[in-house]
């Protein structure tokens, strides 16, 4: 009797949340998969099943290729900048934990991660501005040519990478700090007694022992890199969305196909590609972790 009552409570208590999950997460995910296999245009009356035709079309879609390439470059660019920098910074902050300034370091490095994206991007828009920006002024002072950072296709991708790294760094440093705190102190003391220098312990002890954390932060950074949208929108969409000048990224291409070209099924197939990328990254993370666990 009491058992039954407890079971009833559990089910009733979880039901509202479960219903919301089913309605707002599982159903739309399923819909994305379903739409990707249909010719589902807003304007047309018939929305027939077309199998993998959307995906086949993606293979030959120049804009999609550009978006996929840019997004991949951005995601890996952010990764390459963020991970080593974050690791070194976290090591230094951890080393100076007792310093009065350690709270300031943490806050200063973490702040870009939490401030609203668009206003922060506005600061960078000014920095990169070809005429007014301090970056070009510094370059000119050093004797280099000023560059059109936000208009040149290559340079604007670099600008997006810089902005994204500035924002992603704080999160990575924070997670690494948690990692450093969990490392066994005795091991480092033993290494010190054996004459290891600080950089040596960092290289031969910390880095290998923090591998699971590095793996985790890398996957999180890559996944959020593949979902980049706002940064590219703000930095590289001057002149009212003149398409030639934008840094085309996956989410932007997807939204354009859906809301400008009204090709929802086609946009859904792009979403599925994004999902597959994320799934592969997550699987790689898990399998690498498991391998480590066995070794």
């Amino acid at each position, binding site marked *: 009797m009491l058992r039954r009552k407890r079971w009833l409570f559990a089910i009733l208590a979880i039901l509202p*949340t479960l219903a919301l999950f089913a309605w707002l997460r599982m159903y739309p995910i399923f819909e994305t998969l379903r739409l990707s296999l249909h010719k589902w245009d807003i304007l047309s009356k018939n929305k027939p099943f077309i199998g993998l035709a959307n995906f086949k079309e993606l293979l030959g879609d120049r804009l999609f290729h550009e978006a996929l390439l840019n997004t991949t470059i951005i995601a890996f660019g952010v990764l390459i900048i963020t991970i080593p920098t974050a690791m070194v910074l976290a090591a230094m902050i951890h080393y100076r934990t007792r*310093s009065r300034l350690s709270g300031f370091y943490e806050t200063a*490095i973490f702040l870009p991660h*939490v401030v609203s994206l668009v*206003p922060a991007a506005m600061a960078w828009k000014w920095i990169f501005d070809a005429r007014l920006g301090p970056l070009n002024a510094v370059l000119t002072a050093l004797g280099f040519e000023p560059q059109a950072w936000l208009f040149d296709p290559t340079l604007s991708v670099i600008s997006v990478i810089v902005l994204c790294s500035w924002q992603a760094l704080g999160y990575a440093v924070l*997670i690494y700090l948690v990692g450093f705190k969990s490392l066994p102190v005795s091991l480092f003391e033993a290494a010190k007694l054996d004459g290891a220098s*600080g950089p040596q312990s960092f290289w031969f002890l910390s880095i290998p022992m923090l591998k699971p954390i590095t793996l985790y932060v890398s996957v999180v950074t890559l996944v959020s890199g593949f979902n980049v949208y706002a940064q590219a929108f703000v930095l590289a969409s001057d002149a009212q969305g003149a398409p030639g000048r934008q840094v085309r990224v996956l989410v932007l291409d997807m939204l354009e196909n859906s809301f400008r070209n009204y090709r929802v099924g086609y946009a859904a197939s792009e979403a599925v590609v994004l999902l597959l990328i994320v799934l592969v990254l997550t699987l790689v993370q898990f399998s690498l972790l498991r391998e480590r666990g066995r070794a």
Partner: protein
Amino acid sequence: MSSTRSTQSGQSRRLRRLLVDRGIDLVLLVFSLLMLLPLVFLVSNGFKTPQEMLAWPPTIIPANPTIDNFAAVLQDTPLLRWIFNSILFAVLSTLAILATSSIAGYVLAKFRYTSLNVIFALVLATAIVPFEVYMIPLYFQAQSLGILNSIWGLLLGYLVMSFGIFLIRQNVIHSIPDELLEAARIDGAGELWIFFRIVLPLLRGALGALGVLAFFQAWTAFAWPMIVATNREAYTIEVGLALFQTGFTVDLGRLSAASALVLIPSITLFVILRRNFVEGVASTGLKE
């Protein structure tokens, strides 16, 4: 003899250590200031006259501070309305996420039935899927409910958070012993009473961390508000600013002023809630 040598080497070691400490402090200090510099300039640019914006080198403290930019922005755009929308959206989303996560996290932690394990697996599975993947179908759901361009439309995407459920579940497992709940049951307490009077108070720290995370997640949301709110009055501050900056020949002074108006409250809030926030974010890394 040997003792003087060892104190000497001890002294030089101490000196070296002091130098290393100061060196690292210097690197960290310079790096921290560089990280903050874009934000500092943004706020300061908001107070500059158009002439001073062009000056080189850029000044950190404006020579002739002016509030013209702020006045112009407030006149040109419904900025306060956007800020209000963002705050309302973030607060309601936080409340919804706290409510759904706390009850679901508790049930999934303390009631062991096979059906619940299946539910937990489903929650975890959806957590991997980025929001961007399913936001287009979700948009059509909002459309068919007729809640586009409203706070309810914004909320639709932000009522639940898989990570929230996960976080609360972990906390309940680690900080609330079964014996405590059993004792309350033996004393005749009802399940609801136990949840509200015993479990929730013990989860205060975790709920604080989750609340701050949820608030900032909604406050900085971009893609979803961008497609749901298409009417100027319904914009959140992120969308409003992003479209404002494409709207006319960009005047950086005004843009900076508008951005500063948004940044200052959110930075203040962050500094106040920093502990909660750091706790919440740090716990995202511990799920293994």
